[in-house]
């Protein structure tokens, strides 16, 4: 359905400019190919035929922007997505984290929180959750509210349970949530351990020092310049020898700061900040 609307590069640039001047969100360094699809998809859902209609609503309709922001940002996520990543995390990262008295973890671009809770479960199983501070950030306030609630549609639990087992989990996965009607709610002890806050990787700065930064499948929506900015920010947010985890099809190879990291898991794309 998103292909029915043809947007030119010029129209997209005008829309990006308008969003910045009217609403303060800077999408100018987002990857054009994916952003174009997102904007076209929004227009299709809103039943706009032309970019003029979209611009009209962006300027004149206050409530429209919240919906637009939520719809153009990709919020698709899973618990224990890429089980191999969590397996590598269990085996190669968590044992060294155990040596810190207080462990600080940052999930940048946490969407609706599924991966944050996956990480919390791993830390709990390693006996580290009670001395971990988890920060989860996103630019979209609607996402943060959903993430805070920790509610997962029950129909997805079967898939997540399979992922959990593949990641090396040996507990009964149902021990981590309570089922109510059509939803599963992550237990309070996990939800309470996470600080959810707004942070925009395109403009915001370092706010703490971490032993592990997790930013998976977020930077794929950025162009190379914005990727560079984000990875510099992660570097500066990590303690020496702190870990950076990115999506398994993302790479630091094309960034201008790759020499500052060593590869810990080539398969799971886990890196470590050099001293």
């Amino acid at each position, binding site marked *: 359905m*998103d*292909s029915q609307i043809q947007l030119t*590069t010029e129209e997209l640039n005008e829309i990006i400019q308008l969003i910045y001047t009217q609403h303060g969100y800077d999408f100018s360094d987002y*990857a*054009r*190919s*994916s952003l174009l*699809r*997102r904007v076209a998809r929004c227009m299709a859902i809103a039943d706009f035929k032309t970019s003029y209609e979209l611009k009209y609503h962006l300027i004149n309709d206050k409530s429209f922007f919240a919906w637009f922001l939520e719809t153009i940002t*990709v919020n*698709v996520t*899973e618990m224990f*997505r*890429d*089980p*191999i990543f969590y397996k590598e995390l269990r085996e190669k990262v968590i044992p060294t984290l155990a040596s810190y008295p207080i462990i600080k973890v940052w999930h940048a671009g946490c969407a609706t929180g599924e991966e944050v809770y996956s990480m919390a479960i791993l830390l709990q199983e390693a006996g580290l959750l009670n001395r971990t501070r988890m920060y989860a950030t996103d630019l979209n306030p609607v996402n943060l509210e959903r993430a805070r609630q920790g509610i997962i549609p029950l129909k997805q639990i079967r898939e997540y349970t*399979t*992922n959990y087992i*593949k990641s090396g989990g040996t507990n009964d996965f149902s021990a981590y949530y309570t089922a109510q009607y059509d939803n599963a709610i992550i237990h309070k002890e996990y939800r309470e351990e996470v600080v959810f806050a707004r942070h925009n990787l395109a403009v915001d700065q370092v706010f703490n020092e971490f032993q592990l930064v997790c930013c998976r*499948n977020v*930077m*794929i*929506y950025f*162009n*190379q310049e914005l*990727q560079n900015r984000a990875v510099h920010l992660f570097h500066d947010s990590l303690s020496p020898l702190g870990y950076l985890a990115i*999506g398994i*099809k*993302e*790479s630091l*190879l*094309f960034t201008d700061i790759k020499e500052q990291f060593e590869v810990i898991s080539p398969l799971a794309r886990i890196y470590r900040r050099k001293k």
Partner: protein
Amino acid sequence: MTKNSVDIVVIGGSAGSIPVICELIEALPAPFDFAVVIVIHRSKNVISEMEQILAVKRKEIIVKEPDDKEPIQKNCVYLAPQNYHLLIEEIHSFCLDYSELVSYSRPSIDVTFESIAKIYTEKAVAILLSGANSDGARGMAEMIAKGGIGIVQEPSTAEYPVMPQQALDNNPEAIAWTPAQISAYIHTLNV
């Protein structure tokens, strides 16, 4: 059919397409003066051996899954990674996208075809093979509209004819060829 110089060949397929894809890779000229991108429907969250399955007798040809932001190079065969849509940036690099499924698929053939149409216009060839759903038909229309070439596996030769048949119904300009004819075309492309 005019013979443009071609910068990219994109092959889409689903059920029943893998033997044909192997045949087409075998038929590539050595070296080949264009990039090849393969989009097939695959399952997610499993360790995939697809790169090995597509490894062909010609050892100099390496099929690789591109990373996000990887530059597209000639004489290379790229396989769309499982669980992402594969898009193309204006600077001719790959861009991955983890948004909603399209035609029940991620990667979706339509999504990659449409992205390639926008960037490569008449320098692109789309090839659509055996499969059991209609993914690819719409994207092929986009590629043809931008001046690219659309080739569809002759449905009678396909293990699952739905996908090529849909593409032909949707695209009267597309050429229906047997795997051997497509191989012969690829073998002499840009040569």
